[in-house]
């Protein structure tokens, strides 16, 4: 069955002021895609994300939303470090923020809103943390809370910015498994920015590789090749497939 088109980038140039960061990008975002956005630091991954979310207008070209009529609602999971850690907000209060738009201007969350927020917490497996302060959680728990908040927006597309940043290996695996589950079980379209090439390659179905003023879109096998990565990161890379799992490492294999 053909996937519905959600969004199309048509010759899009992105940047801030007069400074171009990404030039002439063209690609399509389809329903039920699972896309990883990778690339060196400062190449423009977050810029691309902001444009997809509608928070950054393109300097050139067009971003066309859902001509097919497919509904598109973004659930955004920002980097945890970007949030103010001083606010004494409980996990439940943070998750409810995802529903603020639906609740409406000047109105407070009602009983049904609280119930739905708890349902979202249950969906990511942290119902027991509802009354704990967000700032006191571990990295993995915070990430699950932010994913629950994104789910509270009733999204069709889940957008995650470096969801495993600063986590130990077990938490990384657990979060990536949760994201994959949300894709497979709930049919959510996923867009995920990450710098962890091995982890991304083993979970996503498509890759957008962002480099200075250039980008590539394709399957993991097409994009994450030794030659491609070595050229972009300016250092030798080795991409191996062991029992169907990718292993990407810096340096040449002996």
């Amino acid at each position: 069955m053909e996937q519905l088109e959600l969004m199309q980038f048509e010759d899009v140039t992105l940047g801030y002021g007069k400074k171009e960061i990404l030039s002439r990008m063209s690609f399509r975002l389809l329903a039920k895609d699972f896309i990883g956005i990778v690339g060196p630091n400062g190449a423009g991954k977050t810029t691309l994300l902001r444009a997809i979310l509608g928070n950054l207008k393109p300097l050139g070209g067009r971003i066309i939303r859902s001509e097919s009529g497919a509904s598109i609602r973004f659930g955004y999971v920002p980097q945890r470090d970007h949030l103010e850690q001083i606010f004494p907000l409980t996990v439940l209060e943070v998750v409810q923020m995802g529903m603020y738009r639906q609740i409406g201007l000047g109105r407070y969350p009602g009983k049904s809103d609280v119930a739905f927020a708890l349902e979202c917490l249950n969906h990511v497996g942290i119902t027991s943390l509802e009354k704990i302060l967000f700032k006191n959680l571990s990295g993995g728990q915070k990430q699950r809370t932010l994913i629950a908040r994104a789910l509270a927006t009733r999204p069709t597309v889940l957008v995650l910015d470096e969801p495993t940043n600063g986590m130990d290996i077990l938490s990384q695996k657990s979060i990536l498994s949760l994201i994959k589950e949300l894709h497979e079980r709930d049919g959510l379209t996923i867009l995920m920015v990450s710098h962890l090439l091995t982890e991304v390659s083993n979970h996503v179905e498509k890759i957008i590789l962002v480099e200075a003023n250039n980008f590539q879109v394709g399957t993991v096998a097409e994009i994450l090749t030794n030659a491609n990565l070595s050229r972009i990161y300016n250092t030798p890379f080795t991409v191996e497939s062991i029992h169907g799992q990718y292993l990407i490492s810096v340096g040449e294999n002996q």
Partner: protein
Amino acid sequence: MITDIFMVFEIPFMQHALWTGILVGIMCAFLGVYIVMRRIVFVGASLAQISSTGFAVGILFGWNPMLSALCLTLLGVLMFAYNLQSKRIPQDSTLALGYTIASASSILLLSKHPKGDADLIGLLFGNILTITPDQIWILLGTLIVLGSIHLIFYKEFLFIAFDPEMAETLGFNPQFWNILFYITVGTLISLAIKSAGILLVFSLLVIPSISAILLTQSMKRLFLVSIAIAVISVPIGLFFSFTQDLPSGPTIVAVMSAILLLSFITNKLTKSV
């Protein structure tokens, strides 16, 4: 002691001072929570200073000082709000510019005024003991309007303060909500400064909320405790100011500082238990 306090506040000008202090204290302590949490304390200092320049302009040219203070403060609000979008000049530098230029301007403007020195001292420390009932009504009206805006749009202000990026993704306009927030802060400061003075207004913005952060771990309690500290400090400060013949503003600040110290000790003790 309690009887003494009641006797002091039976005197009309002390009653006026009490109501003024409580009204200014409630609103400053409430907005101060956002100001401290968002790490924009210097916005409060700069707006207070800009407001005092507006006051000086009013005094010098014979205009209504409160109105000229309000106009200049709102101009400062727009300037700061515009700069929040700019990446060329750091935000704290713009605030510092506002603070220093406004401070120098107030001094220069009042230096040629016959009562310049007295006016400058009045701006710094306020004249809470010379408040008229009309001014109290104006403050009460302001409190009702600003308080209503913040109660109605509590979740919007909180969301923008905690996670503006996510808020923008959901369709909230962070620039609009930031400007509205700064307008409420600017309005409060410009109306409060004549009665309470820069020192007391700025102290009421920061000290109660910092104490509350040390004492509580809930967003709603944070606002309530901050307001309670301000409301308690005002009568105690005014009482000591009256009985010990001390300037009222600094005495209230001293009481708040003592509560801050107690909050700090309580915080350390509860953590170590």
